[in-house]
Protein backbone atom coordinates (compact mmCIF):
# COMPACT_ATOMS: atom_id res chain seq x y z
CA UNK A 1 0.00 0.00 0.00
CA UNK A 2 1.35 3.38 -0.96
CA UNK A 3 0.39 6.01 1.63
CA UNK A 4 1.57 8.90 -0.56
CA UNK A 5 -0.84 8.58 -3.46
CA UNK A 6 -4.13 9.24 -1.66
CA UNK A 7 -2.57 12.11 0.24
CA UNK A 8 -1.14 13.59 -2.94
CA UNK A 9 -4.44 13.14 -4.76
CA UNK A 10 -6.33 14.80 -1.93
CA UNK A 11 -3.92 17.68 -1.95
CA UNK A 12 -4.29 18.06 -5.71
CA UNK A 13 -8.04 18.09 -5.39
CA UNK A 14 -7.85 20.63 -2.60
CA UNK A 15 -5.62 22.90 -4.68
CA UNK A 16 -7.88 22.47 -7.70
CA UNK A 17 -10.88 23.27 -5.54
CA UNK A 18 -9.20 26.43 -4.24
CA UNK A 19 -8.26 27.46 -7.78
CA UNK A 20 -11.83 26.91 -8.93
CA UNK A 21 -13.14 28.90 -5.98
CA UNK A 22 -10.72 31.77 -6.70
CA UNK A 23 -11.67 31.69 -10.41
CA UNK A 24 -15.32 31.78 -9.50
CA UNK A 25 -14.81 34.62 -7.05
CA UNK A 26 -12.93 36.60 -9.71
CA UNK A 27 -15.68 35.89 -12.19
CA UNK A 28 -18.39 36.98 -9.80
CA UNK A 29 -16.43 40.08 -8.89
CA UNK A 30 -15.99 41.01 -12.53
CA UNK A 31 -19.66 40.41 -13.23
CA UNK A 32 -20.61 42.40 -10.12
CA UNK A 33 -18.70 45.36 -11.49
CA UNK A 34 -20.55 45.10 -14.78
CA UNK A 35 -23.81 44.75 -12.91
CA UNK A 36 -23.20 47.83 -10.77
CA UNK A 37 -22.26 49.85 -13.81
CA UNK A 38 -25.23 48.85 -15.91
CA UNK A 39 -28.10 47.77 -13.67
CA UNK A 40 -30.05 51.08 -13.49
CA UNK A 41 -29.70 51.61 -17.22
CA UNK A 42 -30.66 48.05 -18.12
CA UNK A 43 -33.67 48.24 -15.84
CA UNK A 44 -34.58 51.65 -17.22
CA UNK A 45 -34.38 50.42 -20.77
CA UNK A 46 -36.42 47.25 -20.09
CA UNK A 47 -39.02 49.15 -18.09
CA UNK A 48 -39.32 51.80 -20.83
CA UNK A 49 -39.90 49.08 -23.39
CA UNK A 50 -42.26 46.89 -21.38
CA UNK A 51 -44.00 49.71 -19.50
CA UNK A 52 -44.73 47.30 -16.68
CA UNK A 53 -42.64 47.45 -13.53
CA UNK A 54 -43.27 43.89 -12.40
CA UNK A 55 -42.47 42.49 -15.84
CA UNK A 56 -39.43 44.77 -16.09
CA UNK A 57 -38.10 43.41 -12.78
CA UNK A 58 -38.56 39.82 -13.92
CA UNK A 59 -36.99 40.44 -17.31
CA UNK A 60 -34.07 42.40 -15.86
CA UNK A 61 -33.33 39.62 -13.35
CA UNK A 62 -33.65 37.07 -16.10
CA UNK A 63 -31.31 39.04 -18.37
CA UNK A 64 -28.62 39.41 -15.71
CA UNK A 65 -28.88 35.75 -14.75
CA UNK A 66 -28.69 34.69 -18.39
CA UNK A 67 -25.69 36.94 -18.91
CA UNK A 68 -24.03 35.50 -15.81
CA UNK A 69 -24.55 31.93 -16.96
CA UNK A 70 -23.33 32.74 -20.46
CA UNK A 71 -20.55 35.07 -19.37
CA UNK A 72 -17.92 32.81 -20.94
CA UNK A 73 -19.60 33.10 -24.33
CA UNK A 74 -18.86 36.83 -24.49
CA UNK A 75 -16.47 37.67 -27.34
CA UNK A 76 -14.77 41.07 -27.13
CA UNK A 77 -14.52 41.20 -30.92
CA UNK A 78 -18.28 41.45 -31.18
CA UNK A 79 -18.70 44.56 -29.08
CA UNK A 80 -18.38 45.84 -25.56
CA UNK A 81 -19.64 43.92 -22.54
CA UNK A 82 -22.36 46.51 -22.07
CA UNK A 83 -23.49 46.08 -25.62
CA UNK A 84 -23.56 42.31 -25.13
CA UNK A 85 -25.54 42.70 -21.92
CA UNK A 86 -28.03 45.08 -23.49
CA UNK A 87 -28.44 42.64 -26.35
CA UNK A 88 -29.42 39.92 -23.89
CA UNK A 89 -31.76 42.27 -22.06
CA UNK A 90 -33.36 43.39 -25.31
CA UNK A 91 -33.90 39.81 -26.46
CA UNK A 92 -35.43 38.92 -23.10
CA UNK A 93 -37.70 41.96 -23.23
CA UNK A 94 -38.82 41.23 -26.78
CA UNK A 95 -39.45 37.59 -25.85
CA UNK A 96 -41.53 38.79 -22.94
CA UNK A 97 -43.50 41.10 -25.19
CA UNK A 98 -44.09 38.34 -27.69
CA UNK A 99 -44.98 35.83 -25.00
CA UNK A 100 -47.57 38.01 -23.47
CA UNK A 101 -48.95 38.97 -26.86
CA UNK A 102 -48.58 42.45 -25.69
CA UNK A 103 -47.78 45.31 -27.93
CA UNK A 104 -45.47 48.06 -26.91
CA UNK A 105 -48.24 50.43 -27.92
CA UNK A 106 -50.39 49.30 -25.01
CA UNK A 107 -51.35 51.96 -22.58
CA UNK A 108 -48.61 53.19 -20.33
CA UNK A 109 -48.65 52.58 -16.63
CA UNK A 110 -50.78 55.04 -14.66
CA UNK A 111 -48.74 58.11 -13.97
CA UNK A 112 -47.35 58.59 -10.52
CA UNK A 113 -49.74 61.34 -9.50
CA UNK A 114 -48.16 61.64 -6.07
CA UNK A 115 -44.84 62.60 -7.54
CA UNK A 116 -46.55 65.13 -9.77
CA UNK A 117 -48.46 66.67 -6.90
CA UNK A 118 -45.29 67.38 -4.97
CA UNK A 119 -43.57 68.75 -8.01
CA UNK A 120 -42.29 72.21 -7.17
CA UNK A 121 -42.14 73.45 -10.67
CA UNK A 122 -45.51 73.21 -12.38
CA UNK A 123 -43.97 73.96 -15.70
CA UNK A 124 -41.57 71.08 -15.33
CA UNK A 125 -44.42 68.80 -14.30
CA UNK A 126 -46.35 69.76 -17.40
CA UNK A 127 -43.28 69.30 -19.49
CA UNK A 128 -42.83 65.83 -18.05
CA UNK A 129 -46.42 64.91 -18.79
CA UNK A 130 -46.00 66.12 -22.35
CA UNK A 131 -42.88 63.99 -22.79
CA UNK A 132 -44.68 60.95 -21.45
CA UNK A 133 -47.55 61.56 -23.82
CA UNK A 134 -45.19 61.99 -26.73
CA UNK A 135 -43.41 58.78 -25.81
CA UNK A 136 -46.71 56.92 -25.76
CA UNK A 137 -47.47 58.19 -29.24
CA UNK A 138 -44.27 56.76 -30.66
CA UNK A 139 -44.16 53.57 -32.69
CA UNK A 140 -42.81 50.64 -30.67
CA UNK A 141 -39.66 50.49 -32.80
CA UNK A 142 -39.06 54.18 -32.24
CA UNK A 143 -39.66 53.85 -28.52
CA UNK A 144 -37.16 50.95 -28.47
CA UNK A 145 -34.65 53.26 -30.11
CA UNK A 146 -35.36 56.13 -27.72
CA UNK A 147 -35.13 53.75 -24.75
CA UNK A 148 -31.78 52.41 -25.93
CA UNK A 149 -30.48 55.94 -26.33
CA UNK A 150 -31.89 57.77 -23.32
CA UNK A 151 -32.56 55.02 -20.76
CA UNK A 152 -29.78 52.65 -21.84
CA UNK A 153 -27.30 55.44 -22.48
CA UNK A 154 -25.84 53.65 -25.49
CA UNK A 155 -23.95 55.48 -28.21
CA UNK A 156 -25.30 55.59 -31.75
CA UNK A 157 -22.65 53.11 -32.85
CA UNK A 158 -23.64 50.65 -30.11
CA UNK A 159 -27.30 51.00 -31.01
CA UNK A 160 -26.52 50.44 -34.67
CA UNK A 161 -24.56 47.30 -33.82
CA UNK A 162 -27.37 45.98 -31.68
CA UNK A 163 -30.05 46.60 -34.28
CA UNK A 164 -27.91 45.26 -37.07
CA UNK A 165 -27.94 48.46 -39.08
CA UNK A 166 -25.32 51.01 -40.09
CA UNK A 167 -24.45 53.85 -37.72
CA UNK A 168 -25.79 56.46 -40.13
CA UNK A 169 -29.01 54.50 -40.50
CA UNK A 170 -29.35 54.31 -36.72
CA UNK A 171 -28.66 58.08 -36.55
CA UNK A 172 -31.35 58.78 -39.13
CA UNK A 173 -33.90 56.68 -37.27
CA UNK A 174 -32.99 58.36 -34.02
CA UNK A 175 -33.22 61.78 -35.60
CA UNK A 176 -36.66 60.91 -36.97
CA UNK A 177 -37.88 59.68 -33.58
CA UNK A 178 -36.57 62.76 -31.75
CA UNK A 179 -38.13 65.06 -34.35
CA UNK A 180 -41.42 63.27 -33.90
CA UNK A 181 -41.17 63.67 -30.14
CA UNK A 182 -40.43 67.37 -30.52
CA UNK A 183 -43.42 67.86 -32.76
CA UNK A 184 -45.72 66.01 -30.39
CA UNK A 185 -44.41 67.92 -27.39
CA UNK A 186 -44.80 71.28 -29.18
CA UNK A 187 -48.37 70.40 -30.13
Amino acid at each position, binding site marked *: MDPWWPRSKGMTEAIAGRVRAVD*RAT*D*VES*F*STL*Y*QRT*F*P*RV*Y*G*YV*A*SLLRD*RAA*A*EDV*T*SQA*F*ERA*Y*RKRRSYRPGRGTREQWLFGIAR*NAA*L*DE*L*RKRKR*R*ATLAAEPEDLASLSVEQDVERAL*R*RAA*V*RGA*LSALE*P*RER*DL*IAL*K*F*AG*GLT*NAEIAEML*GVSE*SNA*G*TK*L*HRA*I*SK*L*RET*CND
Partner: protein
Amino acid sequence: MTDHDARAEAELLRRVDDALTAGAVTELDPDDRALQELALALAAETPEPDPVYAAELAERVRAGFPRGSRGRSLRKRIARRLPTLRRPSMPVMAGVATALAAVAVATPLILEDGDRAASGGSAATGGGPEPPPASADDLTTLAPRRPESGAMPPAAGGAFAPGEGERRIERTAALTLAAPAARLDQVADDIASITDRYNGFVLRSSLTTGDRGTTGGEFELRVPSKRLPVALTALSELGKVRQRSQTGDDVTGELRSTTDQLQTAQAQRRSLLRRLERADSDSETESLRGQLDLNAGEISGLKRQLRDVRLRTDYATVSVDLEQHRDQDSATAGRDSDGLRPAVDDALGSLSDSAELVIRALGVALPLALLATLLGLAGRQVRRRRREAALL
Protein backbone atom coordinates in the same frame (compact mmCIF):
# COMPACT_ATOMS: atom_id res chain seq x y z
CA MET B 1 -30.88 62.40 -48.06
CA THR B 2 -28.89 65.51 -49.07
CA ASP B 3 -25.62 66.57 -47.51
CA HIS B 4 -27.42 69.41 -45.84
CA ASP B 5 -29.92 67.05 -44.23
CA ALA B 6 -27.14 64.74 -43.14
CA ARG B 7 -25.26 67.63 -41.56
CA ALA B 8 -28.42 68.83 -39.81
CA GLU B 9 -29.08 65.35 -38.52
CA ALA B 10 -25.52 64.98 -37.24
CA GLU B 11 -25.74 68.40 -35.57
CA LEU B 12 -28.99 67.50 -33.85
CA LEU B 13 -27.59 64.24 -32.55
CA ARG B 14 -24.42 66.01 -31.38
CA ARG B 15 -26.47 68.53 -29.40
CA VAL B 16 -28.44 65.70 -27.83
CA ASP B 17 -25.23 63.89 -26.88
CA ASP B 18 -23.74 67.10 -25.47
CA ALA B 19 -26.75 67.61 -23.22
CA LEU B 20 -26.71 64.00 -22.04
CA THR B 21 -22.97 64.14 -21.33
CA ALA B 22 -23.13 67.45 -19.49
CA GLY B 23 -26.42 66.69 -17.78
CA ALA B 24 -27.48 70.24 -18.61
CA VAL B 25 -28.43 72.52 -21.49
CA THR B 26 -25.31 73.77 -23.21
CA GLU B 27 -26.64 75.62 -26.26
CA LEU B 28 -27.74 79.26 -26.49
CA ASP B 29 -30.04 79.08 -29.47
CA PRO B 30 -33.66 78.68 -28.23
CA ASP B 31 -34.38 75.87 -30.67
CA ASP B 32 -31.27 73.98 -29.67
CA ARG B 33 -31.99 74.60 -26.00
CA ALA B 34 -35.48 73.16 -26.48
CA LEU B 35 -33.98 70.08 -28.08
CA GLN B 36 -31.50 69.62 -25.25
CA GLU B 37 -34.22 70.12 -22.66
CA LEU B 38 -36.20 67.40 -24.39
CA ALA B 39 -33.18 65.08 -24.34
CA LEU B 40 -32.71 65.70 -20.63
CA ALA B 41 -36.41 65.19 -20.00
CA LEU B 42 -36.28 61.90 -21.86
CA ALA B 43 -33.30 60.80 -19.81
CA ALA B 44 -35.12 61.87 -16.65
CA GLU B 45 -38.11 59.79 -17.71
CA THR B 46 -36.07 56.63 -17.31
CA PRO B 47 -37.88 54.46 -14.76
CA GLU B 48 -35.85 53.79 -11.64
CA PRO B 49 -35.76 50.39 -10.01
CA ASP B 50 -37.41 49.71 -6.68
CA PRO B 51 -34.66 49.80 -4.00
CA VAL B 52 -35.84 46.53 -2.42
CA TYR B 53 -35.76 44.78 -5.76
CA ALA B 54 -32.38 46.32 -6.58
CA ALA B 55 -30.93 45.10 -3.27
CA GLU B 56 -32.32 41.61 -3.79
CA LEU B 57 -30.89 41.34 -7.29
CA ALA B 58 -27.53 42.73 -6.15
CA GLU B 59 -27.44 40.02 -3.50
CA ARG B 60 -28.13 37.34 -6.08
CA VAL B 61 -25.37 38.71 -8.30
CA ARG B 62 -22.95 38.65 -5.36
CA ALA B 63 -23.94 35.03 -4.66
CA GLY B 64 -23.39 34.13 -8.30
CA PHE B 65 -27.04 33.39 -9.03
CA PRO B 66 -27.30 30.23 -6.95
CA ARG B 67 -29.52 27.57 -8.46
CA GLY B 68 -32.86 27.16 -6.79
CA SER B 69 -32.68 30.57 -5.19
CA ARG B 70 -35.83 32.56 -4.51
CA GLY B 71 -37.50 29.34 -3.40
CA ARG B 72 -37.73 28.01 -6.92
CA SER B 73 -39.72 24.79 -6.92
CA LEU B 74 -38.51 21.54 -8.45
CA ARG B 75 -41.05 21.90 -11.20
CA LYS B 76 -39.83 25.36 -12.05
CA ARG B 77 -36.23 24.18 -12.05
CA ILE B 78 -37.10 21.35 -14.43
CA ALA B 79 -39.07 23.71 -16.62
CA ARG B 80 -36.09 26.03 -16.59
CA ARG B 81 -33.87 23.28 -17.91
CA LEU B 82 -36.36 21.98 -20.44
CA PRO B 83 -35.74 24.65 -23.08
CA THR B 84 -32.08 23.65 -23.23
CA LEU B 85 -33.10 20.02 -23.65
CA ARG B 86 -35.69 20.82 -26.26
CA ARG B 87 -33.58 23.16 -28.30
CA PRO B 88 -29.83 22.54 -28.33
CA SER B 89 -27.80 25.39 -29.71
CA MET B 90 -27.73 25.66 -33.49
CA PRO B 91 -23.92 25.44 -33.89
CA VAL B 92 -23.82 22.23 -31.82
CA MET B 93 -26.61 20.66 -33.85
CA ALA B 94 -25.01 21.77 -37.09
CA GLY B 95 -21.63 20.41 -36.02
CA VAL B 96 -23.04 17.04 -34.99
CA ALA B 97 -25.08 16.76 -38.17
CA THR B 98 -22.06 17.66 -40.30
CA ALA B 99 -19.84 15.13 -38.55
CA LEU B 100 -22.44 12.38 -38.90
CA ALA B 101 -23.01 13.13 -42.55
CA ALA B 102 -19.25 13.22 -43.21
CA VAL B 103 -18.76 9.85 -41.54
CA ALA B 104 -21.78 8.38 -43.34
CA VAL B 105 -20.54 9.52 -46.74
CA ALA B 106 -16.83 8.96 -46.25
CA THR B 107 -17.01 5.48 -44.73
CA PRO B 108 -18.47 3.69 -47.78
CA LEU B 109 -16.00 5.53 -50.02
CA ILE B 110 -13.10 4.42 -47.87
CA LEU B 111 -14.39 0.87 -47.65
CA GLU B 112 -14.93 0.81 -51.39
CA ASP B 113 -11.36 1.97 -51.91
CA GLY B 114 -10.12 -0.67 -49.51
CA ASP B 115 -11.93 -3.35 -51.49
CA ARG B 116 -10.59 -1.95 -54.74
CA ALA B 117 -7.07 -1.97 -53.35
CA ALA B 118 -7.47 -5.55 -52.14
CA SER B 119 -8.80 -6.84 -55.43
CA GLY B 120 -6.98 -4.64 -57.90
CA GLY B 121 -3.38 -5.00 -56.72
CA SER B 122 -0.84 -7.09 -58.50
CA ALA B 123 -0.29 -10.45 -56.90
CA ALA B 124 3.36 -10.53 -57.77
CA THR B 125 6.01 -8.70 -55.88
CA GLY B 126 9.61 -8.49 -56.69
CA GLY B 127 12.56 -7.26 -54.67
CA GLY B 128 12.07 -4.55 -52.12
CA PRO B 129 10.65 -5.17 -48.70
CA GLU B 130 8.81 -8.30 -47.90
CA PRO B 131 5.10 -7.97 -48.52
CA PRO B 132 2.73 -8.88 -45.74
CA PRO B 133 1.63 -12.47 -45.80
CA ALA B 134 -1.28 -13.04 -48.07
CA SER B 135 -4.54 -13.94 -46.44
CA ALA B 136 -7.18 -16.30 -47.70
CA ASP B 137 -9.01 -13.21 -48.93
CA ASP B 138 -6.06 -12.20 -51.04
CA LEU B 139 -5.90 -15.56 -52.67
CA THR B 140 -9.52 -15.68 -53.59
CA THR B 141 -9.42 -12.21 -55.06
CA LEU B 142 -6.39 -12.74 -57.23
CA ALA B 143 -7.87 -12.15 -60.64
CA PRO B 144 -8.30 -15.76 -61.71
CA ARG B 145 -8.14 -16.76 -65.32
CA ARG B 146 -11.70 -16.94 -66.51
CA PRO B 147 -12.75 -20.48 -67.33
CA GLU B 148 -14.11 -21.16 -70.78
CA SER B 149 -17.59 -21.55 -69.42
CA GLY B 150 -17.47 -17.95 -68.33
CA ALA B 151 -18.09 -18.84 -64.72
CA MET B 152 -17.81 -15.99 -62.27
CA PRO B 153 -14.65 -15.69 -60.20
CA PRO B 154 -15.02 -16.51 -56.53
CA ALA B 155 -16.27 -13.84 -54.19
CA ALA B 156 -14.00 -12.13 -51.70
CA GLY B 157 -13.40 -13.66 -48.32
CA GLY B 158 -13.11 -17.17 -49.66
CA ALA B 159 -16.86 -17.48 -49.83
CA PHE B 160 -18.39 -18.51 -53.11
CA ALA B 161 -20.88 -16.40 -54.90
CA PRO B 162 -24.39 -17.33 -53.89
CA GLY B 163 -26.19 -19.46 -56.41
CA GLU B 164 -23.00 -20.47 -58.13
CA GLY B 165 -22.59 -23.72 -56.23
CA GLU B 166 -19.23 -24.93 -55.05
CA ARG B 167 -16.44 -23.42 -57.06
CA ARG B 168 -13.11 -25.04 -57.63
CA ILE B 169 -10.07 -22.83 -57.62
CA GLU B 170 -6.67 -24.03 -58.62
CA ARG B 171 -4.17 -22.07 -56.64
CA THR B 172 -0.50 -21.69 -57.31
CA ALA B 173 2.12 -19.71 -55.52
CA ALA B 174 5.76 -19.04 -56.26
CA LEU B 175 8.23 -17.91 -53.67
CA THR B 176 11.85 -16.93 -54.02
CA LEU B 177 13.69 -17.02 -50.73
CA ALA B 178 17.20 -15.87 -50.00
CA ALA B 179 19.19 -17.04 -47.03
CA PRO B 180 22.84 -16.86 -45.99
CA ALA B 181 24.93 -19.66 -47.42
CA ALA B 182 25.49 -21.15 -43.99
CA ARG B 183 21.77 -21.50 -43.45
CA LEU B 184 20.66 -22.88 -46.81
CA ASP B 185 20.63 -26.51 -45.65
CA GLN B 186 18.68 -25.62 -42.58
CA VAL B 187 16.16 -23.61 -44.63
CA ALA B 188 15.74 -26.54 -47.04
CA ASP B 189 14.95 -28.81 -44.10
CA ASP B 190 12.55 -26.26 -42.71
CA ILE B 191 10.70 -26.03 -46.02
CA ALA B 192 10.03 -29.75 -45.88
CA SER B 193 8.99 -29.69 -42.24
CA ILE B 194 6.64 -26.72 -42.75
CA THR B 195 5.03 -28.51 -45.70
CA ASP B 196 4.60 -31.55 -43.54
CA ARG B 197 3.20 -29.50 -40.66
CA TYR B 198 0.37 -28.22 -42.84
CA ASN B 199 -0.48 -31.71 -44.15
CA GLY B 200 1.16 -31.08 -47.49
CA PHE B 201 3.88 -32.96 -49.30
CA VAL B 202 7.00 -32.22 -51.24
CA LEU B 203 6.44 -33.23 -54.85
CA ARG B 204 9.90 -32.43 -56.04
CA SER B 205 13.01 -30.94 -54.54
CA SER B 206 16.52 -30.29 -55.70
CA LEU B 207 19.50 -28.71 -54.02
CA THR B 208 22.42 -27.20 -55.90
CA THR B 209 25.81 -27.64 -54.34
CA GLY B 210 29.04 -25.84 -55.12
CA ASP B 211 32.53 -25.54 -53.71
CA ARG B 212 31.27 -24.02 -50.51
CA GLY B 213 28.37 -26.41 -50.02
CA THR B 214 24.74 -25.78 -50.87
CA THR B 215 24.20 -22.70 -53.04
CA GLY B 216 20.47 -22.96 -53.77
CA GLY B 217 17.52 -25.21 -54.36
CA GLU B 218 14.12 -25.67 -55.95
CA PHE B 219 11.07 -27.18 -54.33
CA GLU B 220 7.64 -28.01 -55.64
CA LEU B 221 5.22 -28.43 -52.81
CA ARG B 222 1.59 -29.42 -52.53
CA VAL B 223 -0.21 -27.78 -49.64
CA PRO B 224 -3.94 -28.10 -48.84
CA SER B 225 -5.54 -25.07 -50.48
CA LYS B 226 -7.30 -24.04 -47.30
CA ARG B 227 -3.99 -23.86 -45.45
CA LEU B 228 -2.05 -22.11 -48.19
CA PRO B 229 -2.04 -18.65 -46.59
CA VAL B 230 -0.60 -19.84 -43.28
CA ALA B 231 1.86 -22.11 -45.01
CA LEU B 232 3.07 -19.22 -47.18
CA THR B 233 3.45 -17.05 -44.12
CA ALA B 234 5.53 -19.69 -42.42
CA LEU B 235 7.66 -20.24 -45.52
CA SER B 236 8.19 -16.51 -45.95
CA GLU B 237 9.67 -16.32 -42.50
CA LEU B 238 12.47 -18.71 -43.40
CA GLY B 239 14.48 -16.08 -45.28
CA LYS B 240 14.38 -12.84 -47.14
CA VAL B 241 11.56 -12.90 -49.65
CA ARG B 242 12.89 -11.80 -53.01
CA GLN B 243 9.75 -12.52 -54.97
CA ARG B 244 6.35 -13.88 -54.31
CA SER B 245 3.42 -14.41 -56.63
CA GLN B 246 0.09 -16.10 -56.28
CA THR B 247 -2.56 -16.98 -58.80
CA GLY B 248 -6.02 -18.43 -58.56
CA ASP B 249 -7.58 -20.19 -61.52
CA ASP B 250 -11.26 -21.02 -61.47
CA VAL B 251 -11.58 -24.54 -62.91
CA THR B 252 -15.21 -25.09 -61.96
CA GLY B 253 -16.18 -25.07 -65.62
CA GLU B 254 -13.58 -27.63 -66.47
CA LEU B 255 -14.72 -29.83 -63.59
CA ARG B 256 -18.36 -29.59 -64.62
CA SER B 257 -17.56 -30.32 -68.22
CA THR B 258 -15.52 -33.40 -67.27
CA THR B 259 -18.24 -34.56 -64.87
CA ASP B 260 -20.85 -34.19 -67.61
CA GLN B 261 -18.68 -36.08 -70.05
CA LEU B 262 -18.18 -38.81 -67.46
CA GLN B 263 -21.90 -39.08 -66.80
CA THR B 264 -22.55 -39.29 -70.54
CA ALA B 265 -19.90 -41.96 -70.91
CA GLN B 266 -21.34 -43.92 -68.00
CA ALA B 267 -24.85 -43.68 -69.47
CA GLN B 268 -23.48 -44.85 -72.79
CA ARG B 269 -21.82 -47.75 -71.00
CA ARG B 270 -25.10 -48.75 -69.39
CA SER B 271 -26.81 -48.57 -72.76
CA LEU B 272 -24.08 -50.66 -74.40
CA LEU B 273 -24.34 -53.24 -71.62
CA ARG B 274 -28.11 -53.48 -72.12
CA ARG B 275 -27.64 -53.85 -75.83
CA LEU B 276 -25.00 -56.49 -75.18
CA GLU B 277 -27.48 -58.45 -73.11
CA ARG B 278 -29.91 -58.35 -75.99
CA ALA B 279 -27.37 -59.02 -78.70
CA ASP B 280 -28.49 -61.77 -81.11
CA SER B 281 -25.43 -62.34 -83.16
CA ASP B 282 -21.73 -62.80 -82.49
CA SER B 283 -20.79 -59.95 -84.79
CA GLU B 284 -23.09 -57.61 -82.91
CA THR B 285 -21.69 -58.85 -79.59
CA GLU B 286 -18.17 -58.33 -80.87
CA SER B 287 -18.97 -54.83 -82.05
CA LEU B 288 -20.57 -53.93 -78.74
CA ARG B 289 -17.60 -55.29 -76.79
CA GLY B 290 -15.31 -53.13 -78.87
CA GLN B 291 -17.44 -50.09 -78.17
CA LEU B 292 -17.47 -51.00 -74.47
CA ASP B 293 -13.68 -51.16 -74.42
CA LEU B 294 -13.45 -47.74 -75.99
CA ASN B 295 -16.07 -46.48 -73.57
CA ALA B 296 -14.17 -47.94 -70.60
CA GLY B 297 -11.02 -46.18 -71.76
CA GLU B 298 -12.93 -42.94 -72.08
CA ILE B 299 -14.45 -43.32 -68.60
CA SER B 300 -11.09 -44.12 -67.12
CA GLY B 301 -9.53 -41.09 -68.76
CA LEU B 302 -12.31 -38.82 -67.57
CA LYS B 303 -12.05 -40.18 -64.03
CA ARG B 304 -8.35 -39.51 -64.12
CA GLN B 305 -9.03 -35.98 -65.29
CA LEU B 306 -11.49 -35.50 -62.44
CA ARG B 307 -9.03 -36.81 -59.90
CA ASP B 308 -6.42 -34.53 -61.35
CA VAL B 309 -8.68 -31.46 -61.16
CA ARG B 310 -9.68 -32.33 -57.60
CA LEU B 311 -6.08 -32.85 -56.63
CA ARG B 312 -5.13 -29.51 -58.19
CA THR B 313 -7.90 -27.71 -56.39
CA ASP B 314 -7.61 -29.50 -53.07
CA TYR B 315 -3.89 -28.95 -53.01
CA ALA B 316 -2.21 -25.73 -54.03
CA THR B 317 1.06 -25.88 -55.87
CA VAL B 318 3.83 -23.93 -54.23
CA SER B 319 7.13 -23.43 -56.03
CA VAL B 320 9.94 -22.34 -53.80
CA ASP B 321 13.27 -21.17 -55.18
CA LEU B 322 15.96 -20.98 -52.58
CA GLU B 323 18.87 -18.67 -53.25
CA GLN B 324 21.98 -17.61 -51.50
CA HIS B 325 21.94 -14.11 -50.04
CA ARG B 326 23.70 -12.02 -52.69
CA ASP B 327 24.16 -8.94 -50.56
CA GLN B 328 25.16 -10.72 -47.40
CA ASP B 329 28.39 -8.69 -47.35
CA SER B 330 26.48 -5.49 -46.99
CA ALA B 331 25.06 -6.47 -43.68
CA THR B 332 24.11 -2.94 -42.80
CA ALA B 333 22.14 -2.45 -46.00
CA GLY B 334 20.41 -5.74 -45.38
CA ARG B 335 19.42 -4.79 -41.89
CA ASP B 336 18.23 -1.47 -43.16
CA SER B 337 16.05 -3.05 -45.82
CA ASP B 338 14.77 -5.59 -43.33
CA GLY B 339 13.99 -3.10 -40.58
CA LEU B 340 14.07 0.63 -41.17
CA ARG B 341 12.93 0.89 -44.78
CA PRO B 342 9.75 -1.15 -44.37
CA ALA B 343 9.01 0.84 -41.26
CA VAL B 344 9.47 4.11 -43.13
CA ASP B 345 7.37 2.78 -46.02
CA ASP B 346 4.67 1.71 -43.59
CA ALA B 347 4.72 5.08 -41.90
CA LEU B 348 4.48 6.89 -45.24
CA GLY B 349 1.67 4.59 -46.28
CA SER B 350 -0.22 5.26 -43.07
CA LEU B 351 0.36 8.98 -43.51
CA SER B 352 -0.92 8.82 -47.06
CA ASP B 353 -3.99 6.87 -45.95
CA SER B 354 -4.66 9.37 -43.19
CA ALA B 355 -4.29 12.28 -45.60
CA GLU B 356 -6.67 10.60 -48.01
CA LEU B 357 -9.17 10.08 -45.22
CA VAL B 358 -8.88 13.70 -44.12
CA ILE B 359 -9.25 15.01 -47.68
CA ARG B 360 -12.30 12.85 -48.30
CA ALA B 361 -13.84 13.87 -44.99
CA LEU B 362 -13.13 17.52 -45.74
CA GLY B 363 -14.61 17.15 -49.20
CA VAL B 364 -17.83 16.09 -47.58
CA ALA B 365 -17.67 18.14 -44.42
CA LEU B 366 -16.81 21.52 -45.95
CA PRO B 367 -19.90 21.85 -48.17
CA LEU B 368 -22.04 20.53 -45.35
CA ALA B 369 -20.44 22.93 -42.89
CA LEU B 370 -21.08 25.77 -45.32
CA LEU B 371 -24.68 24.69 -45.66
CA ALA B 372 -25.03 24.34 -41.89
CA THR B 373 -23.53 27.81 -41.43
CA LEU B 374 -25.95 29.30 -43.93
CA LEU B 375 -28.84 27.53 -42.24
CA GLY B 376 -27.58 28.72 -38.87
CA LEU B 377 -27.40 32.31 -40.11
CA ALA B 378 -30.83 32.04 -41.67
CA GLY B 379 -32.17 30.57 -38.43
CA ARG B 380 -30.64 33.41 -36.47
CA GLN B 381 -32.18 35.92 -38.84
CA VAL B 382 -35.58 34.26 -38.53
CA ARG B 383 -35.36 34.27 -34.73
CA ARG B 384 -34.36 37.91 -34.81
CA ARG B 385 -37.29 38.82 -37.04
CA ARG B 386 -39.70 36.89 -34.85
CA ARG B 387 -38.41 38.80 -31.85
CA GLU B 388 -38.56 42.11 -33.62
CA ALA B 389 -42.12 41.28 -34.63
CA ALA B 390 -43.04 42.07 -31.03
CA LEU B 391 -42.26 45.70 -31.86
CA LEU B 392 -44.59 45.87 -34.85
